[in-house]
Structure formats: C-alpha cells, structure tokens
C-alpha cells in the first residue's frame, strides 16, 4: 500500500523540486525569495493561456518560463536595484500575481499536458519529472564546481570577497533571482500540465512549502530535493481513504510538516551569511 504512494510522491515532488532549486539559486545569492509562490502561479498561468491558444505544450512551457522570469525580474529590480525590503516585496509580488490571475482569469477548459514518457518498471511520468535528476546534478555542479557558482555563493555569503575581486554583487544577484524565476515557472507549468486544468488555487502554498524544503535541505540542491520528496509524500497521503481521518487534516498535513521542519525539530541548518542584506 505504501508502494502505491511512490508514483504519486514523485509526481507531487516534481513541482516542489523545481521551485526549491529556484529558491536555492536566489537565496544562495542573498535574496530571500518568498515570491516563489507568485512565480509558480504566473508560470502556470502563462502555460495555460498559451497552451490553450496554440495547442502546443512546448510553447506553453516557454511562455510559462518567460512569465516566471518576468516576475523574477520585477523582484530583483525592486530588491537589488532599489534595495527594498525583500520579504515585503516578495509578499507584494505574490499579491500581484494572484491579482493578475483574477483579472485575466483564463477559461477553465482542458489544457494540453506535457508529453509523458512510458518506461518499463518505472512507469510513466511527465517529461519534466525525468529531467529533474539531471537538473539537480547541473545545479549541484554549477554551484560547487564552477566559477559562476562560486561567485553566486559569494554574493550571498561574503560580499567582501566579491568586492576584493571587483565583481558586481548586483549582477550575480540578478543572475540568481532570474534562475529562480525560470525554475519556479517550470514548476508552475508542471502543476497545470499534470492535471490538465488551471484553477486559481492550483499552487496552494507550494511555493512556501518549497521554501521550507530549501531551509530543511540546508540550501544544498541534493538535500533540498530529498526534502521535496518528503513533502511530496506528505502531499500524496490524501490517496489513503481507509483510515478514518478527516479530509481537511490530511490536506493540511504538508503545512503542518512544513512548520515542524522549520522549527528545526529535524536538525539545525545554517543560512547563507548575507541572506536578506541589501547593501552592495
């Protein structure tokens, strides 16, 4: 019975994984990213509208990514260039995203899904689920094995190091937040393509849950995706109807788990040193 939960866990963990990797990119660069939720929502929205118009999932994916990226640029423009309060700006962007959905409310028609790949034994999943492991690896290599990653981490950890190299902190922060918009947008696209339907509450706090996964995973890609699997598992528990548990309790289980995880009851974590600091 637990085995039957595995496919659902993978499916639920995929969008969280994308958003969490995005969260890592921006938080490692020193920008606290509460706006993951809004970026996912915008990504999902862009996917829906363009996929409905063109009947092509790939164009949908591209537009979804662009939407997430656009919102990320808004966030980075405000927080990096104008040095606004990062958390408040993030919440504002979430409100903005929700508002634009309500304003431009797309029709609730069926949306084309991304192609699924059928493999023996493993089963069939969306193509974005298969690219996930590759993405984790890429993220890990970029962060820890390349000069880019080094600079990105320096932007969030020791601004002095960047200064001594006479590198612009702002540029690397823009880079990090931009990446997070792209990844979170992909997460949003996956959510729509998975159920072939767009609703206003489709993200349902997954952006925040992903952020909790980032903290739980200690800002490391591999650990964070493992945390996402845990949250995905908690999210798929609603498949179990045998136990006489109220529906609402099962639905809020990921949220409760998030709070437990954030309380550090599962282990202490260490955030990037310059996270949330807005000086250059």
């Amino acid at each position: 019975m637990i085995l039957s939960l595995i496919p659902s866990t993978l499916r639920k963990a995929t969008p969280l994984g994308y958003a969490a990797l995005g969260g890592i990119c921006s938080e490692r660069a020193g920008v606290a990213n509460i706006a993951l939720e809004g970026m996912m929502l915008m990504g999902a929205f862009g996917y829906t509208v363009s996929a409905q118009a063109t009947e092509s999932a790939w164009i949908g994916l591209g537009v979804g990514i662009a939407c997430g990226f656009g919102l990320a640029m808004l966030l980075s423009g405000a927080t990096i260039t104008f040095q606004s309060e990062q958390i408040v700006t993030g919440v504002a962007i979430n409100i903005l995203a929700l508002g634009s959905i309500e304003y431009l409310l797309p029709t609730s028609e069926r949306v084309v899904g991304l192609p699924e790949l059928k493999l023996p034994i493993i089963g069939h999943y969306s193509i974005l689920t298969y690219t996930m492991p590759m993405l984790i690896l890429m993220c890990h290599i970029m962060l820890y094995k390349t000069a880019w990653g080094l600079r990105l981490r320096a932007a969030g950890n020791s601004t002095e190091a960047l200064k001594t190299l006479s590198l612009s902190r702002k540029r690397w922060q823009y880079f990090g937040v931009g990446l997070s918009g792209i990844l979170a947008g992909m997460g949003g696209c996956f959510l729509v393509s998975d159920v072939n339907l767009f609703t206003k509450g489709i993200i349902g706090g997954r952006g925040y849950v992903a952020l909790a996964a980032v903290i739980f995973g200690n800002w490391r890609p591999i650990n964070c995706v493992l945390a996402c699997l845990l949250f995905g598992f908690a999210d798929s528990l609603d498949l179990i109807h045998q136990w006489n548990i109220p529906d609402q309790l099962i639905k809020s289980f990921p949220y409760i788990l998030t709070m437990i995880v954030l309380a550090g009851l599962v282990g202490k974590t260490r955030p990037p040193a310059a996270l949330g600091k807005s000086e250059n």
Partner: protein
Amino acid sequence: MYLSIYVFPFLTYEYVLNNQPVPSVHTRNQFHTIQQILNVVFPLTAVLVFFLFCGIVLLLRGESPYAFYLTILKSGFSSFDEFASVLFYATPLIFTGLAVALAFKAGLFNIGCEGQLYIAAFTAAWFGIHINLPSIVLIPLCIVAAMLSGAIWGAIPGLLKVKFGAHEVINTIMMNFIALALTNFLVVSVFREPGQMTLQTEAIHKTARFQRLGEVIPFIKESNLLDASFLLAILCVILTHLFLKYSRWGYELRLVGNASEVAAYGGIKPGRVIVWTMALSGAIAGLSGVSDVMGYRHRFLDSFSSGWGFTGIVVALLGRNHPFGVFAASLLFGLLNKVALDIELELGIPRGLFLVGQGLLIIIMVCMEGFVIKRKR
C-alpha cells in the same frame, strides 16, 4: 523663499544620513520633520501611482478612466449614507491593518491575519450560538474569547521564532492554511446548520449581535450595514496609539523592533516581547472576524474573508505603521472594496485589477523607502 523651504529639509537629511556633523542650527527635530514629510509624501505618491495604473489599464481595455474615477467618487461620497457604507467596508481592514502595523513596529511580519481572524470568528460564533446571556455580558464575553483564540493562533509562530528561530512569515502562512482547513472541518462536519446547502453555522443569539448604527443615528438609513464594530475599531486605533506611544510595553515593543540588542542590554527580553507582540497582533486581527460574525453575517460562513488579512499588509504599509495612518489607509481600501463590487457590475472590470494595484502599491512603497533611505548610507 518658498524654494528654500523645500530644499532645506532635504539638505539636513543628507547630513544626518551621511553621519556628518550636522551644522549647529539644524537640530534633531529637523530630522523628525523630514521623516514626517516623507511619511506623507511616500503614501501619497504610491496612491497616485495606484490610480494612474488603474487608469492606464482601463485605457488599454478601451474604456474611459474618467467614468471609473467618477464611479469611485460617487460611490464613496455622494451621500452620508454611502460614506457610512465605506466605513462598514473599512472596519475589518482597520483591525487587520492595526495588527500588521503593530507587528511591524516590533520588526515582525504577521501575514497570518487571515488565519487568526478565521479562528477568532469561529470562536465568537460558537459562543454566540451556545451561550444565551444578556447582551451586556455576552458581547464582551464573545469578544474576549475571540481575541484570546486569535492571540493563541498568533502566538504560536512567535513562539516558534523565539524557541527555534523559524521565520514567522512562512509559519504564519502555513497557519493560514491550517486555520482554513480547521474551520472548514468544524463547519462541514460538526456545526453545520441543518438543511442548508451553504457551508455555514446557525445564527448567533440576538443578544450577541452588534447594534446597527443606522437604527440609532438619524443620518444613516436603517438598511445601512454599518454596525457598532466600527466604534470598536476607532477605540482600537486610539488604544493602540496610546499603547505604542506612552506605555512601557509599547516602548519595549518599539525598542525590540528598532534595536533588539539595545533592548537586551537594557534588561528587556526580546524573545518575550516577540511572543506577546504576535499574540496581541493576533488578537487585534481576530477582531476583524468578530466584526463580520457579530456585526454583519451573524453566523460563521466558510471562507468568508475576502483577503482582509492581506489587504491589512497594504493598509499598514501605506499608513506607515502609525495607527492614525492605518485608519486613513483603511478608509481608502474600504472605499476600493466597496467600489470593486459596483465597478464589476457596472463597468465589467474584474476585481483583480485592484489586487494587482495593491501589489504594485506595496512594491512602490518599499522601493521608495529603500531607494531614499538605504541608498544614502
């Protein structure tokens, strides 16, 4: 001469922020006046941009912004009665705005007003349904119980922050989801009104209801929805102001918000202050739910709030976290909430436009703040 009045304050401002010796004629009071000027300039600019934005969107849709502005003015100020309706729509926002502002003063960001007001509203409804006493006892009882439950719901994230260092923002959001699920469960499975399709509880006793002001004040029609919870809101604004400015606890709260370490060396326990501030913030946010249950609907309706907790953030920022500023800002958003309905019906403009505008408004506010204040350092 007039020019010097405008230029002069900004010159001192530069001096203060660059940590240079301020010329002896410029006292510290002048720094305060500059801040006070900015406190007015920032919100006004933001509101102006907000209305301009709405106008531009309407132009893009091919509609006349003029009709839109006219509808807003007409719907808000054409008669005393209309204005009373604006006050009715502003009431819940005053509470949530105050709650967010109070937390901001202590350096905390309470996005959990939505959850806190649901829990408090349900508590108020429960007491109102199950206890039958004369009004003079029952109404305070309901209010206190609701505030207590809101306070508990607010204190949990505060406690988690102090004990485990968990950021209150994510926790309050999670508590929102949990509160929604919890009240939904209670309404659906336990306290649902029999034989009703809508997810709501039974009506509360007549003695637990707030007086409609229209029945007392001659200027307002009897059908007007404005009720006594508005008076409660005014009381709250004044009390919060006195509390922040003149009480010892208010001083501790502001000190923790401005300089947590100084507070600690001064013998204040920042952890304790954080917990009770979150509790107080939750209690005030809870009153927002009380005003809905006891003043308007007289029952608990599942997911009744139209994002008051989130509008509270905008209201607090726009009011510069000052109780009187919050009051003024919630009047504006009360008007917008009232107008949103009219505009959706008459001009066919979706409510989302205002929500987008609100998000934009916050971003502009914090950007101006960051750009003017932080950059100069």
